[in-house]
């Protein structure tokens, strides 16, 4: 029978979007203000997990809250845990109304806005005011916008990857540099910005999570820049629901939002003819914010296929990358020994040395493997599994090799007067859950640093009490 069940990837299901934990820490007042805009509701809704989304939809058109017991019949027995998680997550986002112990319903603000989003209506102007067509100049083409966004974005990444290599690539703007430093992706080292270990990891992420990582950092800084977080968030969400290739007017934007224009131009999220222009065009980076599609589908590689995949990896560890993109080449250089370079092709091998270099930079084996998977050439996609198992295993083994020993600081307690003494102290230490190693024959045990003060106090009280 074909399949309504079966092929699922539970791992993906549990992966929370990076923005949600941030939203969950915000106050109910701010969130309620945010939810007044249908575009924000729609965008956040899209970031939710599949079960959450279905629950919101189930509740959306109900006028009255319903009994939680009724709701539990909406899920199968196996789905109960996921269902409970989903409810908890929705409650933390303040999607649910407050009296949620017995009866459940969506909060009024969210419900109204979400209904408006789905049916179109209301007067919130939250999806952006389209600019009047300009008689003299036509709007930028989608290709031009893509090229612009790509150029901005790659400037940032390229700057990161080539820091410390002696090359001097184009510097991104001050705002971007500051953001990179604040997020810990780069750090000042002898008067120069140098990429950090988390920066190396960042380079191997998908463009999508890179973008969100930077935006989250941007959101963290909002308050110290005296900007209104709700305005900032709702502007980002508005951008994500806009249409690529259309020009929008800045008329309806608040002051905070106008102040963001410059930053967003720097990140490549939007394009403006001049800084003083009264109109702007969102780029693909912005319009795909709430999707998992690659934000920049047209990589500049002219040699390879138009899509993302350009890497062929063979079982003999040799790697062929069909790219002429200096950024991709530089990123590959992080964990590949490059042998030859041709106009449209880089040939190299994954070697112990190259992987060790990456590991020393703080990159993990999983990150290398996931990068290779993400950018695998369409030809590779026919393979099951996608990457040669030998290579995957070896990369993991090389990582394990660096972890031959584990070290833990603490105290060795030894030379106990009697077996009873030993057991008495050991039991106490066990209760504290600080015992890392023990040996009854030698009558000694090793406890972690954290437990030492307590154990010492315990022994002193005991010896003091028994008068010895």
């Amino acid at each position: 029978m074909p399949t309504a069940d079966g092929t699922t990837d539970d791992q993906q299901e549990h992966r929370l979007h990076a923005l949600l934990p941030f939203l969950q820490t915000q106050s109910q007042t701010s969130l309620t203000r945010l939810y007044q805009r249908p575009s924000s509701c729609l965008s956040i809704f899209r970031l939710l997990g599949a079960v959450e989304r279905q629950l919101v939809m189930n509740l959306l058109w109900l006028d009255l809250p319903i009994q939680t017991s009724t709701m539990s019949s909406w899920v199968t027995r196996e789905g109960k845990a996921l269902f409970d998680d989903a409810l908890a997550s929705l409650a933390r986002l303040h999607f649910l109304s407050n009296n949620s112990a017995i009866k459940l319903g969506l909060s009024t603000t969210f419900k109204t806005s979400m209904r408006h989003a789905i049916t179109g209506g209301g007067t919130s102007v939250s999806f952006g005011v389209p600019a009047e067509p300009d008689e003299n100049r036509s709007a930028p083409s989608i290709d031009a916008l893509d090229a612009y966004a790509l150029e901005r974005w790659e400037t940032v990444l390229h700057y990161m990857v080539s820091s410390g290599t002696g090359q001097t690539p184009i510097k991104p703007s001050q705002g971007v540099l500051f953001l990179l430093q604040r997020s810990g992706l780069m750090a000042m080292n002898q008067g120069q910005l140098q990429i950090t270990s988390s920066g190396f990891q960042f380079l191997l992420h998908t463009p999508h999570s890179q973008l969100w990582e930077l935006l989250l950092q941007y959101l963290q800084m909002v308050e110290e820049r005296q900007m209104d977080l709700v305005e900032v968030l709702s502007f980002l969400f508005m951008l994500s629901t806009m249409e690529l290739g259309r020009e929008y007017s800045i008329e309806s934007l608040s002051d905070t939002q106008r102040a963001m224009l410059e930053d967003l131009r720097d990140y490549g999220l939007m394009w403006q003819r001049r800084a003083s222009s009264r109109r702007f065009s969102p780029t693909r980076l912005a319009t795909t914010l709430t999707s998992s599609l690659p934000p920049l589908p047209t990589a500049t590689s002219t040699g390879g296929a138009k899509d993302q995949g350009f890497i062929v990896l063979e079982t003999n560890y040799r790697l062929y990358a069909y790219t002429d993109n200096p950024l991709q080449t530089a990123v590959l250089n992080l964990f590949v020994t490059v042998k030859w370079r041709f106009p449209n092709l880089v040939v190299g091998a994954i070697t112990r040395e190259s992987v060790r270099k990456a590991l020393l930079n703080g990159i993990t084996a999983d990150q290398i493997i996931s990068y290779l998977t993400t950018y695998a050439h369409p030809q590779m996609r026919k393979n099951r599994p996608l990457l040669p198992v030998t290579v995957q295993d070896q990369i993991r083994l090389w990582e394990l090799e660096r972890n031959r020993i584990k070290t833990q600081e603490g105290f060795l307690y030894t030379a106990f007067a009697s077996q009873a003494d030993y057991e008495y102290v050991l039991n106490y230490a066990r209760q504290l859950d600080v015992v890392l190693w023990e040996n009854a024959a030698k009558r000694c045990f090793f406890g972690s640093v954290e437990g030492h003060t307590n154990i010492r106090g315990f022994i002193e009280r005991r010896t003091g009490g028994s008068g010895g």
Partner: protein
Amino acid sequence: MRAVRGVLITCDSAVKQILLTLDERPGQSFIIEDLDEFHVLVRADEEQRVRRELEAELEKNTYSMEA
């Protein structure tokens, strides 16, 4: 009763033998106590040096095709 401050190293037995050999080098003793087959207690201030030397020792045992 005595409490000795140190770093507990958990490792496989091959690595432990290397550690014992390193410890025997004149003037470089770092092991406080040899606990059992998989555990050794070493001086806390020596941890980084031990890691480095172990790394160098293990490196002697790897061979690369590329060479």
